């Protein structure tokens, strides 16, 4: 941990020096005001791109030269034609004639009916604006370049989240467009205290990143910490919020996810209300939530939407599923190859008969089945949607059945493996599921070495790791330990809503009481 911090500090220094070096190259080139020169300058920078459009024209009958530069495809052509070109070319001189304002003021304040309008005066900014879909307007004699917001957003419709389906709950999911996402978030909770802070990340390709939190709930120290960590990100490009996750997490060696990702705005918002912080990245439909604790990985928003009894029971079921998915095959190995005396006699007899003729020891048998089911799952994931289920049937049923018939695998092993596979699907967080899948193999090896003793050792080392792990300063295993009885109302059980009057204590919120 310490070492990493030092590295980050170092890189920060490097980053600063690099920026200082960079500035004289592009940023400081001012525009002359002479359209020919300025246009040439921009052409030199962008002219080789076939998707950049240069359109030169005159302002009405005034004879003043002007030009717009835009990207085909990324800009809204109708907007440019109707509200920019038309208002600058048709009737321009008549309208302008009797005014006493300067040309620039007239254009910006009276002629153009466009909401998003900024002025820039250096090449670097102009180019980057153009490349994000804005239209640059050059007018002869005006030093500044007018940037018009004409971006046509390539967004898909808001759809139901694919990776986190619910029976009951909002059908809205985040999209790839940041502005849509923040809008959804605003809409979710009309709260004037919802702070949305924008930060630009990425060195070569700039991406907008948003940190959202509730002003009067979230711990300011936590907000500072998140901002600090995001500022240290030093990378070319961030294609997905997964990059952000990996760059800000506490322990890169841990198999556990220390940042939660979700597609569901309702989940994000309820996390914000608890005092957590959300991070959204432009271009990614997955919002990140920090800090995260282990128990959160086993929670689903539905726990809260359903009444508390089913909610609690389902949550208990998930804990059981997590346990099974982690330990079932290793227990099988331990009992079959180390402690056959500990299982009931009748079960022992039926296992013996089912394993009669199986050529492999339990570990190899379990490995064959576990690995093949992992491959199956991976294959099913990548296949086109209509083929996926068919794959599952072929792989799961036919191969399993055939393996048993051929006497390679015992039927009980098939039961154990399918049980673990199903259990790992019952875990609402995909990334947590992956963790358990990895650890399951470690547990299997431990069991194959030392039987039950190996499983206990594995459990101990797992717990040792978990108690050391922190997510943004919050112990990963809280609220389980250190004991905070008041936080247990929303841990293994989900108590009735009227009892959960307080926000999680572990987050050190500014306002600890949920107002009714």
């Amino acid at each position: 941990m310490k070492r990493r911090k030092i590295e980050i500090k170092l890189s920060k220094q490097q980053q600063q020096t690099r920026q200082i070096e960079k500035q004289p190259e592009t940023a400081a080139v001012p525009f002359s005001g002479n359209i020919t020169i300025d246009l040439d300058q921009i052409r030199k920078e962008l002219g080789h791109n076939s998707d950049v459009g240069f359109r030169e024209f005159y302002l009405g009958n005034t004879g003043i030269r002007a030009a717009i530069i835009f990207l085909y495809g990324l800009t809204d052509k109708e907007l440019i034609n109707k509200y920019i070109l038309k208002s600058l070319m048709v009737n321009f001189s008549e309208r302008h004639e009797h005014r006493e304002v300067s040309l620039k003021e007239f254009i910006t304040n009276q002629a153009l009916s466009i909401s998003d309008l900024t002025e820039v005066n250096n090449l670097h900014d102009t180019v980057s604006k153009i490349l994000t879909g804005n239209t640059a307007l050059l007018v002869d004699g005006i030093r500044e370049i007018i940037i018009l917001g004409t971006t046509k957003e390539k967004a898909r419709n808001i759809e139901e989240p694919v990776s986190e389906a619910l029976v009951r709950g909002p059908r809205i999911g985040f999209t790839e467009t940041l502005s849509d996402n923040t809008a959804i978030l605003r809409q979710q909770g009309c709260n004037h205290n919802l702070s949305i802070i924008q930060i630009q990340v990425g060195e070569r390709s700039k991406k907008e990143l948003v940190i959202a939190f509730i002003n009067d709930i979230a711990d300011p120290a936590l907000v500072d910490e998140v901002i600090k960590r995001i500022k240290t990100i030093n990378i070319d490009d961030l294609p997905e919020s997964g990059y952000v996750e990996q760059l800000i997490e506490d322990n890169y060696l841990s198999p556990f996810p220390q940042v939660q990702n979700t597609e569901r705005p309702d989940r994000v918002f309820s996390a914000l209300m608890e005092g957590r912080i959300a991070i959204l990245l432009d271009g990614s439909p997955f919002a990140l939530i920090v800090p995260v604790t282990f128990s959160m990985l086993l929670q689903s928003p539905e726990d809260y939407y359903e009444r508390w009894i089913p909610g609690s029971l389902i949550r208990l079921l998930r804990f059981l599923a997590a346990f099974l998915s982690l330990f079932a095959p290793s227990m099988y190995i331990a009992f079959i190859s180390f402690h056959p005396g500990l299982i009931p006699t009748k079960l022992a007899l039926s296992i013996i008969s089912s394993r009669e003729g199986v050529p492999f020891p339990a570990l190899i048998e379990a490995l064959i089945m576990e690995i093949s089911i992992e491959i199956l799952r991976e294959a099913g994931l990548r296949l086109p949607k209509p083929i996926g289920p068919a794959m599952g049937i072929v792989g799961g049923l036919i191969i399993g059945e055939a393996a048993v018939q051929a006497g390679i695998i015992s039927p009980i092993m098939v039961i154990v493996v399918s049980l673990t596979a199903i259990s790992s699907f019952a875990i609402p967080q995909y990334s947590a599921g992956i963790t358990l899948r990895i650890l399951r193999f470690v547990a299997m090896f431990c069991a194959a070495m030392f039987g039950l003793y190996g499983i206990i050792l594995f459990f101990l080392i797992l717990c040792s790791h978990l108690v050391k792990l922190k997510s943004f300063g919050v112990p990963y295993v809280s609220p389980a330990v250190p004991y905070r009885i008041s936080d247990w109302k929303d841990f293994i059980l989900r108590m009735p809503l009227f009892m959960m009057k307080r926000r999680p204590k572990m987050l050190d919120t500014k306002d600890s009481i949920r107002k009714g």
Partner: protein
Amino acid sequence: MKVSHKDRITTPQAVIVLINYILAAGILTLPRTSVEKVKTPDVWLSVIIGGLIAIIAGIIMVKLSQQFPEKTIYQYSQVLVGKWLGGLLSLLIVGYFFTLAAYEVRTLAEVTGFFLLEGTPIWAIIMPFMWVGLYLVLDGINPIARLFEIIFPITVVIFLLVTFMGFEIFEIDNLRPVLGLGLFPVLKGIKTTVLAFLGPEIMLLLTAFMQKPHKATKVILVGIGIPMIFYIITVIMVIGALSIDGVVLRTWPTLDLIRSFEIQGLIFERFESMLLVIWIMQIFSTFTITYYAASLGLSQIFKMKMNPILYGLLFIIYVIALIPKNINDLFKFGDLIGNAALVLFGVLPLLLLVISKIKGGKT
């Protein structure tokens, strides 16, 4: 080397550390060792008296430690009785801690090697266990306390479940008569039962780490009271099932209690594995805390960093753990440690407390 704020532990954590430290190897053999001495079914009374004595000793140690806030015995003993004598005393305590750690590890190896892993060499059982311990201890007292908090509820639940399933073979007649032969046999068992409560000495260090050191007395009361309940339940259930005459013959009577019944129709028919699971966890907790206490001592006496000491001590503990030649040697080894503890933590803290009062009066 003052205790940093980060390393502070809460009062419940201190209680649980104490409980997990006390519950260890003893719980498997206590019914036998105490019945050997008492010879009547009144062993549970000896357990209660033993616990009370341990509480008194614990309170003395806490009072002593409270005189020196934020300092462990290793630091304040040098203040109290001078650099050399204090250093020597601290070294003795360090020696006690790592010998105890070695003893626990060896007991673990014996029991696991016998009941779970017949044929596995001792070193193969001990080494991974010690590595896991090392991994935990590397980050100081806080992760240790948190891990104990995870282990503790598991222990309670499984222990109660398993022992109460033994009701099937429980016979109240085996526990009667109460005080049939008077109080004298009960008194004979006290030394044995007091030794089962080895553990309050950790308060000599732990008080320094507590967020609220003034609650340390409470920690002693609860932290010894709960193991006392555990021990009473164990002793009563074991004697009730196996009878006095059956208990004295068994090497690990508590395990035999669990081995004596089977319940059909459940996933398990036999529950000794469950008991062993929690027992191994308890041994692990005792091992880590003594290991930590010993290395903390060395690092504070010699003003060195923890990590190199931890690695070095691991090796020493390993070697000591391999010294006893057979199981009788091991039991003798345990008695030796117990006797050392009686002197180190029964008599010395009282002396130190008196000295500190006298000194305190002067200044």
